[in-house]
Structures are given as C-alpha cells and as structure tokens.
C-alpha cells in the first residue's frame, strides 16, 4: 500500500503556439517530482505525474480535467491561458480536487466564483504594475506610450501600471495607446503611430511569447522607435530573446525569478532544481518552470505536514500560509491564494538577461 504512487495531474498546452512553454513547465514539474521522490516522496509514497495537453482551448482543457479526475489524481496543477483555467476551475472544484494555478494571470481566477479555494503562483497584474510604474517614475520619462494586447490580461496590466503611476502622483503624458489582438505578428502600423508620438518610454504588453513579443521587439528596433522599450512583467523570457535576436538588446523588463541571480543563485533548493532540470531535460529553467516546480513543492510540503490528501485542509494551509525552503526561497501566500513575489528589473544585454542592481 505504501508503494501505491500518489497521482498528480498536470495540464498545460503541449502543442500549438504556447506548446514549447507548456512542455517546459511540465518538465520542471517532473524534475521537481523526481527531487521529491528522491527525498522520500509524499507521506511515504512516490508522486506520479500525469500530464495532459489542453491545446490552449478551454473545451479541451475541461475534458482533460475530467479525464484526470477519473484517473483519481489528488491535485491538479494547471493553467497557462486564463480562459482555460477559468473553464477548468468549476469542473475540478466540483470534483472536490485541489486545483493549483501555476501561470494564468486573470484576476477572476482568485475571485472564488469558480473555485473558492483557489491558489495561484504567478504574480498578478496589480503586483506587476507597481514595478513598471516605479521604473517609469525613476527614469523621469514624461512621454509614455502603450502598446497593449487587447484582452483582459493586456488591458488589466496597462490599467495597473497607470493606476500605480497615479498613486505615485507622477506627472506624465500618455502620448500613444495602441491596442492589438493577441495573435498579431505585424506591428508596423501600430509602431508607426507610436513612433510619430515620439515617446520617452514605450510599454509593450504582449503575452504571446512565441510570436508577438519577439516580432514586436524586432520591428520596434527596425522602425527606430525612439526612447526606451519596456516590456510588461514576465513577457520576456529567454525564449523570446532567442527568437528576437540582436534586436532584444537594450529592452527593459521585470520578472520574479532568475535561476542564476541572488537570492536564487545561492538558494540550495533552487540549485538542486536547476541541476535536476538540466540533467533530465538539458534545459535551464525559467520563471514559468520555477513557478510550476514551486507549485508542486508547496503542495508536497503541505501534504507532508498535514498528512492528508484532502483538498480543504491543504488549501487552507497554503492560502495565507508561509513556506520555507522552496525553489523561490521563503515564500508567503496572501489569504486569497496569491503568491506574494518580489520583482526585479532587468535589461537585455548581448542577448542575455542582466538584472539591474536593486534600487529599492
């Protein structure tokens, strides 16, 4: 009986535009499972990861969730696209299974409507807005332009930045605001408008890492966009830089995790995780992968602590709770289930992410 593995369901897009990222997150979770199993597993039983592809489609996500539920998983770690997460939440919740959202950013995920016991690791729009607003304020830029993906995520992110700027009572002029659909790859028309407005800072908010963001960075460079290009939190991953190539140099961004920067670099848990991932998948983890791994790790810690697999006590332990010794260091969840995180600004130099010395 002790040998019976505990099943953990994992649902991310494994194909389509977000497929590569989804695969990486899944791999990170597998790496973490292997670390946990090496350390004796959960309640003395090994973890078995069952992974599914939601194809970035809510309907598919829901069927996959149903499948995992009937496979008898104890927890489901999911969520790259917000609509997929929002669609899966009620289904998983009704089945009485714990649902941890790793990446999806939409605010309603934590609203409690779909899942009153929601937990999410990725930072929220409002958390993200502050760091960008602070940068704009510090840089003294007066002419600000926005290039924003026209959906809940993009508009929310822009609103958060503007709200923060207002809170700071910072005087600036919004010289351009261009919205575009998620799957846009040609930004020349929008960039022409932005360029004509001659901004000091252009904030680019585009979660389409496979296509839109690298295209935007390249075309901004080619069109000789004046001022600084600032990208929204978490939208410039190493994969984006790889596609964007040289054009990415000089782009400014912010994020919550960097594998080889303090405090992560010296964190033994993180070192273990980075090593394991490189060993198993020949890949250095990025922020998303770290979040996926942390999700599993936090759950495993809670289970081992409470010695139960039941949804409710575990969720209550996580929501509003503290955890020490995770990949992300010592972390804390807000009572609504949101992981609290620290943002760091970085610039891309020589196609490498270079974290700026902390100014706070």
């Amino acid at each position, binding site marked *: 009986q002790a040998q019976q593995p505990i099943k953990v369901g994992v649902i991310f897009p494994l194909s389509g535009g977000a497929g590569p990222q989804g695969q990486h997150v899944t791999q990170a979770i597998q790496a973490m499972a292997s670390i946990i199993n090496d350390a004796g597993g959960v309640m003395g039983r090994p973890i078995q990861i069952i992974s599914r592809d939601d194809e970035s489609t809510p309907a598919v996500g829901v069927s996959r969730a149903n499948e995992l539920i009937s496979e008898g998983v104890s927890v489901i770690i999911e969520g790259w696209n917000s609509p997929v997460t929002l669609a899966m939440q009620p289904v998983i919740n009704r089945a009485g299974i714990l649902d941890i959202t790793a990446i999806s950013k939409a605010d309603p995920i934590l609203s409690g409507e779909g899942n009153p016991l929601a937990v999410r690791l990725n930072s929220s729009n409002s958390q993200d807005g502050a760091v960008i607003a602070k940068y704009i304020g510090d840089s003294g830029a007066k002419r600000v332009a926005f290039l924003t993906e026209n959906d809940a995520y993009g508009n929310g992110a822009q609103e958060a930045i503007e709200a923060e700027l207002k809170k700071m009572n910072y005087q600036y002029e919004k010289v351009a605001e261009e919205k575009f659909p998620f799957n846009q790859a040609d930004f020349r028309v929008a960039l022409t408008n932005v360029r004509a407005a001659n901004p000091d800072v252009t904030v680019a908010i585009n979660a389409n890492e496979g*296509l839109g963001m690298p295209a935007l960075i390249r075309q901004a460079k080619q069109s000789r966009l004046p001022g600084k290009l600032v990208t929204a939190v978490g939208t410039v991953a190493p994969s984006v830089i790889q596609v964007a190539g040289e054009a990415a140099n000089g782009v400014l961004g912010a994020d919550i995790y960097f594998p080889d920067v303090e405090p992560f670099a010296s964190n033994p848990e993180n070192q273990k995780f980075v090593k394991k991932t490189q060993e198993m998948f020949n890949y250095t983890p990025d922020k998303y992968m770290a979040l996926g791994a942390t999700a599993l790790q936090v759950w495993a810690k809670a289970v081992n602590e409470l010695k139960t697999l039941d949804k409710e006590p575990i969720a209550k332990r996580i929501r509003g709770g503290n955890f020490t010794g995770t990949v992300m260091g010592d972390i804390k969840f807000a009572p609504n289930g949101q992981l609290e995180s620290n943002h760091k600004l970085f610039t891309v130099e020589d196609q490498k992410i270079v974290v700026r010395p902390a100014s706070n």
Partner: protein
Amino acid sequence: MNLTQQLVNGIVLGHAYALIAIGWTVLLGVARLVNFGHGQMYMLGAFVTWYGISRLGLPYILAIPLAMLVGVAVGYVMQRVMLQLTLKQDLVSIMIVTLGFGYVLHGAAALFFGSTGQILSTPLSMEDVYWGDLWFTYQDIAIVIVAILFFAALKYIIDRTRLGRLARMVAEDPQLAELAGINVKRVYLGVFAFEGAAVALAAALVAPRTPILTSMGFDEVIITFVVVVLGGIGSVLGSYLAGLALGLFVAFFGAFVSPAYAMAAAFAVLIAVLVIRPGGLAVSPGGR
C-alpha cells in the same frame, strides 16, 4: 501621425495579401476549386524556406525554389487524392477535405519543425531602408515588385493564352472539355501544383516580415478568402486590387482607429459590400 509611413505600410501589406492570395485566385476563378489548406501550405512554404536557409545552408535564392518545389509536391498530392471529388465537382467535400489537409500539414510540420517560433531572415529582410522619416526593407520592395509582375503575367496567361483558356474550359465543364481534347486530370493537377508553388513563393517572400510558427496559417487563409471574394471570384485584376485595398484599409484603420479591430472592421466592410454586390467588386451587378 505619419501618413506617408502608413501609406507605405499599407502598400506593402496590400501586395503581400495579394501575393498570398494569388494561388487561390487561380484555383477558384480558373478551376472553381477551393483550398482551405492554403494557410498551412503558406506555413509550410515559410518553414521550408527557413529550413533551407538555416539548416541546409542554402542561399535565399535557392531556398525559394526548394519551397516552391515542396509546394508543388503538396499541391499535386492533394489534388491526386481529391481527383474523384474534383471531377464530380463536389465542392462541399472539397472544402472539407482541404481543411483536413491543412490539419495534417499543421500536425506534421509541428512534429518535424517543432513548435517554437523561428525567424526567417533573408539577405533582403536584414537591409533596412530609411528615407527621411520613411522606413521599409528590401524585402518589402521585393514583395511589391514580385506581386506586380506575378499578377501581370497571370492576367496575361489566363486571358490571352491557350493555357488559360484550357483551364477555364475545364473549370466550367470538365466532361465537355475532355471532348475538346483536353487532359482534364492533368489540368486539375497542374492548377493545384501551381497553387502550391504560388503560395510557397508568397511565403518565402512575405514570411520573413514576421516570426514564423507552425501554428500560423489561419490568418493567411482568411485574408486570401477575403481578397479573392472581394475581388470577384476568378478575377485576377480584381484580387490584386482587393488585396491592395485590404492592405491600405488595415493600415489606415489601424492608424486612425485601432489595429485591434482592423480585421473585424475589414470583415464588416466585406459583408456590406457583398450584400450590396453579391458578385464582389469586379463583377457588375446583375451581370451574368
């Protein structure tokens, strides 16, 4: 707001649209066939070009014919498989079979090329041209020139040459065309092979403008559809003009309103046009 730059954007975009649509114009107008796998064939053309340049180390000028060759092969195989449906003129089935081909191409390309984004950079796309405030690349110039030449040649061939007449005869009544000594199957195969080559050429020229993904192709097929129908089915000149008009519309709508709604607005205009003139812009109302 820089109107001249938007005009340049619109012109380049318009020629790109027209170029992407050209294969389908021929299919639809000349042989009354459709191909919903068009977008995926575009994707394949882009990836073969990319593969030729970055994996096989071919120069751009050789990667293009390679892509076209693959396009021809895919077009040929598609038509070979559908030949019976084509001869029966079963349009509903053809629409759906080509949709199926699009699926297969997408799946196969993703397995083969992977699903990460790639940059298809060509010697032309790396060369930016700055004229005062204006900006474009040599790639953009190539798109405009090739599109114009291609359309002119096509217009001439379809209207004036035996080959064009042949295809039009087959389009109308394959069985009657047989009685005129035409090898109908060969014409169908040829038209589809042409479609494959044309869309691959378009991909090799247009795709370097943006990063490429194996999941792309959806937008391309929609744009093609709009261009072909708006131009009046089968009208070569019409689809050139429709492509150009669409490009300018997208650019200026983006400039004055918002790029977010440019496609939806283009569709709204399309619907309005077709309600007023069901035959598209090229055909006079009530004609035929």
